[in-house]
């Protein structure tokens, strides 16, 4: 199941990550919450991001 995990540290910094989304769709899913919280200071794409993008590209190519 797709979910968004927001962790707020004792200094008030928030980390937002999405699980169970494929490729770029996770960025859309977290967009509202990211904009609501404040100013983005860093962004990291985990290996899954590229893997799932490739997977969906492959599917598209196969269809």
């Amino acid at each position, binding site marked *: 199941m797709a979910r968004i995990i927001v962790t707020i540290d004792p200094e008030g910094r928030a980390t937002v990550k999405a699980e169970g989304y494929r490729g770029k769709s996770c960025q859309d899913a977290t967009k509202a919450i990211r904009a609501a919280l404040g100013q983005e*200071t860093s962004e990291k794409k*985990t290996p899954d991001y590229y893997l799932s993008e490739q997977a969906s590209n492959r599917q598209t190519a196969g269809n």
Partner: protein
Amino acid sequence: MSHIVTIKTELRDLHAIRAACRRLGWTFVEGQRTYAWYGRYMGDSQLPEGITQEELGHCDHAIRVPGASYEIGLKATGRGFVPLWDYWMSGKLPENAGQRLAQAYAIEKARMEARRAGHSVVERQLADGSVQLTINA
């Protein structure tokens, strides 16, 4: 998991600020234009970004903390409200008042956004003092 973003919390929503104060047991006072502090800047602490020495003591809203004689002021800026407070000496405000407010605000703001989207939220306190919200989309 495929994407992690770190965000510096900005206090922009008065509803969430109000909810953050409730969470902390503090009292939000809308429209209070001054906040109690020592009254004179001694140059012994760094001024918040974009705040001048002359602006200290003045605010747009204020927060009262039980047991503290000094208060927290919220000053409106282009980047949301900046908390101003004096933790020196007898004011009895915690040194980390601004960080505590930012954490409580981010929790409440994220919960509000999740609710608005019709998602359920599970809140968990972590051992390092962080709070984790799991939003089921």
